[in-house]
């Protein structure tokens, strides 16, 4: 079967069941399950995530972006440092970027204090990390392609039947 079609469908709707996907694609459920498993095993599909606006719950939540200046290591470049930073569960994404600092990471924590502790006690002491710049998120407008809490667009206001 065409794995690209499956990928597109899952990108649009990660909750689609194997039964749904098989019906849409005209493939057997076994074939779809097999292809899906193989995409997961190859890490082409890396996860299925839920976009939650924690601000609407009473759970404390703080997000921040942190720019990290770092020096590459002989032989491994930035990969070794990246691995060390990425292991921390607070780090939700981590990128090597062009620009003023080498890494940009985002972290999810419960309080500002937690963020400060993470930077001071975990991130800054890593060998090769030279400097950090922390930017706290004040308000979220769009996350992973989803507009949070903005006026929704009209769903479908077409005439029932037209030429």
């Amino acid at each position: 079967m065409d794995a690209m079609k499956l990928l597109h469908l899952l990108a649009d709707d990660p909750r689609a069941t194997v039964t749904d996907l098989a019906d849409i694609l005209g493939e057997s459920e076994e074939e779809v399950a097999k292809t899906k498993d193989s995409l997961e095993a190859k890490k082409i599909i890396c996860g299925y995530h839920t976009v939650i606006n924690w601000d609407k719950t009473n759970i404390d939540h703080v997000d921040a972006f942190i720019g990290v200046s770092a020096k590459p290591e002989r032989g491994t470049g930035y990969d070794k440092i990246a691995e060390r930073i990425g292991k921390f569960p607070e780090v939700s994404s981590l990128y090597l970027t062009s620009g003023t600092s080498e890494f940009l990471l985002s972290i999810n924590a419960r309080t500002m204090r937690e963020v400060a502790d993470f930077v001071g006690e975990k991130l800054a002491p890593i060998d090769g990390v030279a400097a950090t710049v922390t930017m706290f998120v004040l308000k979220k407008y769009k996350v992973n392609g989803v507009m949070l809490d903005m006026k929704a667009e009209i769903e479908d206001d077409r005439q029932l039947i037209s030429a």
Partner: protein
Amino acid sequence: MLDYEKLISQKAKDMRPSGIRRFFDLAAEMPECISLGVGEPDFQTPWDIRDAAIHSLEVGRTKYTANAGLKELREEIGVWLQKRYGLHYDETEVLVTVGGSEAIDLAIRALVEPGDEVIIPEPCFVCYDPITTLTGGVPVPIATKEENDFRVTAEEIKAALSPRTKILVLGYPNNPTGAVLRHEDLEAIAEVLRDTNVIVLSDEIYSELTYGYRHESIASFPGMREHTIVVNGFSKTFSMTGWRLGYAAGPKPLIQAMTKIHQSCIMSAPTTSQYAAITALKDCDDDIEEMRRQYDLRRQYCVRKLNEMGLKTFEPKGAFYVFPDISILGLSSDEFCEALLKEKHVAIVPGNAFGASGEGFARISYAYSIDHLREAMKRIAEFVNEHKGE
């Protein structure tokens, strides 16, 4: 009290009410009905295009444009037609209109004298026949055949030609069948027309919605540019039906004659839409690609489901319609669609609304989300099952 019936012109009275309208009224009475009946995309207009329109309003672009449309837009249309279909039109050979609809109207009115014949392969979009009749022309339908995948053939056209033939309408990719004309079909048609005085009104409004096949315009065939008015627009390609913007491209004298009529009855196409359209042509290749991908998935889904439930459906290569043969239940198109609407609350359009040769078929639009299509297909399958063997 005025007697309006006496006041209304005979021509207006003679226009036959569209079969689509009748179905619309039936469906409208059914509040929970799910429709597969539309002839327009479900996607929102890409944001870049809407943003360009908003910007044009912010800076105060609120006046008429040149009658033929903004020069920059006409130039961009020329670039687009060149890039996509290898056609060459400069800005004086392009007229920006209120939808492809107006371009069709202008082309017919600029060419047709009373008694002139307009060859119309059917089933087809519903406007060619009434506009021809309004101008005093005579529609000459060709019934295209299912065994040819609803492609009109050069032989059929040859047989329909007469000394009074003025226009041949070619509406491919086709509404309602989804048929397309292949290179060899166009070549054979060009061969038949090259030495005649017939003008092809080539309605290419679905030209970007083709699957596994790239659209070709008859105007790109040797000797055919002189014979062709290309009609296209923004409604389907860019999901811009409500913006009411289209265009015609063709030989300068024809475009000038059409512009004269347009000048008197329209002045100029909507200014905001014209600014938006420049962005559409320049910046939205990826949006087209993404919409095409989604349509293609739905197309394959619908063709498969309909065939599985026993409604023979050929694989359409264009537009966003499938055209199943619904005759196996022994019902006419009207009966089938009415019963489906009443029993399962699914609205589709009887094939005969697009010409007599559409009898025995129905048009199903797949310009809907896959979830919507799945629910509708489930209901149609139930309907077919319940009526089989009756």
